[in-house]
Structure formats: structure tokens, C-alpha cells
């Protein structure tokens, strides 16, 4: 069962990329692309799970961090 590691607006801090085992800039790139491709604004909040899954504020999946790296 994947666990939530980030559930806020804004850019996730380094501990989130550390949890995912990736560089912080890689996380930034991936979140930017997932949001834009999902028609979300940069200011929209997302939820990130420790398996890389990203959902929107409503809990609907919009992508996976590892697919964007």
C-alpha cells in the first residue's frame, strides 16, 4: 500500500525527492510536466505517494514521477 509523502501546494522539498530516491531537480521537472499535461495550474496542489504516483486534489491519479525521469 503506497503511502502519502507530500500533500500540499507549491514545490515539494528535498525530503520528498530523497524518499523517492531521485534528485530534487528531477522531482521538480516531473511534477511540472505531470501538472501541465494534466491541465493543472502550477499553484494547484498534488498528492505524491512513495511509489511515485501523483494524484490531484480530488484523489484522481494524474501520473507517476518515475515515468517522467
Amino acid at each position, binding site marked *: 500500500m503506497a503511502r502519502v509523502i507530500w500533500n500540499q501546494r507549491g514545490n515539494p522539498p528535498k525530503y520528498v525527492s530523497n524518499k523517492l530516491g531521485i534528485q530534487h531537480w528531477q522531482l521538480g*521537472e516531473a511534477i511540472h510536466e505531470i501538472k501541465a*499535461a*494534466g491541465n493543472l495550474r502550477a499553484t494547484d496542489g498534488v498528492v505524491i505517494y512513495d511509489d511515485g504516483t501523483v494524484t490531484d486534489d480530488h484523489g*484522481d491519479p494524474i501520473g507517476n514521477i518515475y515515468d517522467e525521469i
Partner: protein
Amino acid sequence: MAIPSAISMMKSENTIRTFATLRFAGDALDPDEISRVVKETPTRAYKKGQRYRPGPRGPEITGKTGVWYFSTKRKIPSKDLADHLDALVRLLFPFGDQDRRLKEIRDIMKRENLQAHVTCFWRGPSDANQPSIPSVVSGALHRLPADIEVDFATE
């Protein structure tokens, strides 16, 4: 082996990363129509209600609205954001086109009630100057119209 790895990581963190994206969105969007007009294959595209999988690890997703999305991330190797934005502007204003493509896209946007968005990503070392949007780019995108979102930060 630990020392080269640490050096590699430091170099990686000190590198500028930048790209730009363009997307059209709307419930009536037909991705093939946008691709035909801009003469480019989208990075991702889907119609409203269409089931799609964004990647091998990602779950199947239902499009809440139609989206045609293009990213320069894997297309333009430059570390200068202006080069990435220029690539997007050329999709809308090809050389020698005399605004014919702009008119065609604007007609589609009006008919299908589409929105256009441009986003800019930039990450760089703490001592680097953050980029700015060239006025010629913001002026061109304003004519579409497309709004511009920036996501700039230093590591």
C-alpha cells in the same frame, strides 16, 4: 567509487535545467485538429472522457477535458529558456506564414472554446540569475492569447 559519485551529484545539482510547454485545453478539443494545424506531434494528447495511460508505471486515467500538450524537455537541448520559448512560438508563428496559422488556431480556439497555456520550468544553482520572458515572446503569446506560468527556483 564514492568520490566520483559525489562529484557527479554536485555537478548535476549545479546544472541549469529548463524547458517550456504549450497546451490547448477544452471539452470540445480534437487533438488531431491541433496537430494538423501546428504540424507537430504532441507530447501527450487526449479527448475529454478518453482513457489513456501517461506512462508504463502510471495508472489509466480518464481525461477530464481535452488536452493537446507539447513539451520541449526532450526536444530542445539548450539551457537557455529563450530557445525553448522560441520553439513554442515557431509552432504558432512559422517563418513566412504571415499569421495564417495564428488565425487558424484562433478560429479553432473560438469555435471549440479552448484555452491556451504556456509554462516555463527553470532550475539552477543558487548563484545563477533566473531567466526572464523575452518581450517578443510574451507579446506573441498574448496575441493567441495564451497565459504564461513560470516555475523558477534555485537549488
